C-alpha cells in the first residue's frame, strides 16, 4: 500500500475547524505528511474568503459544526469547483442530513492517513 506521505506530499489541503487545538494538531499532522495546509480557518466566512483567493486546492477537511453555523456553504462551493472534500464530525453519521457532495463522512478525530486514502488514493 502506498504510504500516506507519498499520497499527501505536495497536496494543498484546506482545513476548516473551529476548535483551535484540534485545528493546530491537524495542521501539524498534515504538514508532517508533506501536505501544504490552507488555513486552518474557523468559520464559513473565513473559509469562503480563502477559497476565493486560492487558485489550487487539492482537497479539504470540513468540520460540520462551527461556532454558530454549519459548514455547508463551504461544501457547496468546493463541490462546484470539483474539489474533493470530506466531513469530520463528532456526531453519528445518521445525524448528518446530506453529504453535499462530500466524498466521505469521518468520525472525529480524523487522521491524515485516512484523509489521504479517502481523498487522493
Amino acid at each position, binding site marked *: 500500500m502506498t504510504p500516506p506521505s507519498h499520497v499527501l506530499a505536495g497536496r494543498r489541503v484546506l482545513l476548516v475547524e*473551529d*476548535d*483551535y*487545538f484540534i*485545528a493546530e494538531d491537524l495542521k501539524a499532522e498534515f504538514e508532517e505528511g508533506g501536505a501544504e495546509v490552507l488555513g486552518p480557518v*474557523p468559520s464559513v466566512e473565513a473559509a469562503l474568503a480563502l477559497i476565493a483567493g486560492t487558485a489550487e486546492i487539492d482537497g479539504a477537511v470540513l468540520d460540520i459544526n462551527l*461556532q*454558530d453555523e454549519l459548514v455547508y456553504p463551504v461544501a457547496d462551493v468546493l463541490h462546484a469547483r470539483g474539489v474533493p472534500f470530506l466531513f469530520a464530525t463528532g456526531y453519528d453519521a445518521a445525524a448528518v442530513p446530506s453529504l453535499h457532495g462530500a466524498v466521505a463522512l469521518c468520525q472525529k478525530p480524523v487522521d491524515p492517513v485516512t484523509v489521504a486514502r479517502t481523498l487522493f488514493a
Partner: protein
Amino acid sequence: MPIQASRAGGTFKDRFRARFNDRLAALSRVQGLLSRSDQEPITLRALIETELSALAAAALQEQRIRLDGPAVRLRKTTVQTFALALHELATNALKYGALGAPDGRLSVTWRICRADPADRRLRVEWVEEGFPARAETPDARGGYGRQLIERALPYALKARTRYDLRETTLRCGIDLPLPEGDAAGDDPDPPSMTPLP
C-alpha cells in the same frame, strides 16, 4: 523505567489526569448552565460566579474577590470556550496567584464598548494582585491556559487578548465581539458578592 515523580507532586500522568478531570468538571458545570439557558439566559456574571464558587469558595467568603460589570447575556456558542478560559485563569490563580495567597486579591470587571454601531465589544479585565513573587519564570504559569487565552480565543471567538504576568500581579484582558444577540439585560444582576472596601 518508573515515571519520574515531579516536584509538583505525583507523576506527570497523575497531574495530567487531575487537570483533565478538572476541565471535564468545568465543562459539566457549563452544561448545567446551558441546560437551563432557555428559562434563564447565561450572563457573564453567572459564568464567573459558577466557576469561582467551585474553585475558590474560601476566597469568595473572605471577600478577596471583586466582580463588577453590567448584565451581559452570552451566546451559547461563546459560553463554552469562554468558560474554559475562565477555568484556566481561576485554576492558575489558585495554584500560583492571588487565590492561593493569603493576601491576594482578584478583581474581574467588564464593560461594553461600542466603537461604532456594528462593532459592539465586551471587555473583560482579570486582575490579580498581591501574590508572592516566585522563582519560576512567568512562562511556568499555565502553558495550556495561556495558549488558550492568547491563541484559542482569538481563533475561535475573534477575541483580542492580553496576558501580562509580572512578579506579583497578573493583568489579563479579553476583548471580544458582542453581536446584538448578546443583549445587555434590562435588570442588572443582583450584586451577590460584596465589593471590596
